[in-house]
């Protein structure tokens, strides 16, 4: 008998044994399975369920809600943009009437032209007016201010040494 046949026979015998044991243990295994099933059902019921974004039904719902939300928003945006543009145009139409951009140069009042000689004459007249006696220039006033020579002489008299 070849090795392959031996393995097959061995496998078949094992399968028969498995089936026999399954029959023997049918009742306890059935109870075991029933208990685990009841527990799993109970536990998964209380698990938080999340939404899977890719689910066909869910995705369709999301798309529908997105469209329902976006369309009014887009319309509102367009309306606002239209109003802003219209307002802008109105302003452009009124502004030139109220504030003309190009204003003609009006003649600016310039000071009266006075000749230099007339101005000096006027100053002289003002200066030649009488002033109080106390303010009159000192008569015969000399250059009484201290000169270098005077200072030297005073220093020599006082014996100041440099």
């Amino acid at each position, binding site marked *: 008998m070849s090795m392959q046949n031996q393995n097959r026979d061995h496998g078949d015998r094992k399968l028969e*044994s498995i089936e026999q*044991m399954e029959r023997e*243990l049918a009742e306890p295994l059935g109870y075991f399975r029933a208990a685990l099933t009841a527990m799993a059902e109970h536990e998964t019921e209380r698990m938080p369920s999340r*939404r899977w974004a890719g*689910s066909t039904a869910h995705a369709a719902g999301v798309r529908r809600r997105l469209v329902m939300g976006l369309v009014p928003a887009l319309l509102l945006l367009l309306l606002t943009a239209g109003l802003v543009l219209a307002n802008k145009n109105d302003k452009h139409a009124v502004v030139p009437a109220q504030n003309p951009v190009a204003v003609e140069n009006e003649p600016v009042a310039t000071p009266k032209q006075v000749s230099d000689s007339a101005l000096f004459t006027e100053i002289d007249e003002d200066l030649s007016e009488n002033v109080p006696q106390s303010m009159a220039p000192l008569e015969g006033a000399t250059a009484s201010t201290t000169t270098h020579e005077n200072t030297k002489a005073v220093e020599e008299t006082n014996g100041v040494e440099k």
Partner: protein
Amino acid sequence: MEGTVPVDYPAAAWSAATAEIGDFDEVVRLYRPRIFRYLIATLGDRDVAESLTQDCFLKAWSARHQFRGESSLMTWLTRIAVNLARDHIRSKRMRFWQKARAEDMDALDVSEWLADERSTPERSLLAREQVNRVWTAVRGLSPHQKTVFLLRFVEELELPQIAEATGMNENTVKSHLYRALRAVREKAGNAA
């Protein structure tokens, strides 16, 4: 339980669900109890099973375009769940908390979920005792044996489907199943 989907549903629904993978909410609604059932039986920890169930559907959601319908949707989801459970068991954190997990499994009393439909209180008590014996035996199986055993007797997958979901060949599946059944019969068979 009104409004809930029974964990057992006809195999014909699989193909329909395969076609409806686009409606992922429906896929989750149909298969979540089954995936959770497998994970809690494998790991014995409600919180971890719940977290991995979410991860399983998240992975399936990410890879949904790769699903070609070559296997049933349940087999495909089970493969993801088996890999998640295996990775979790292998993780360092899991090894560190191995002891705590064993205690969690002890605390999880599966038999209390058995509906009290037996004719007499004695039969109900006996049924619960049988569930506890199986549960104790399952906890003592190796990871491979446990996976194969649960997929066969809790998820009711056929051997080729188990092979596909676990990535083992069919003979390996048979070997693990044979050993698992022998171990369970030793512990639970006496009372059966």
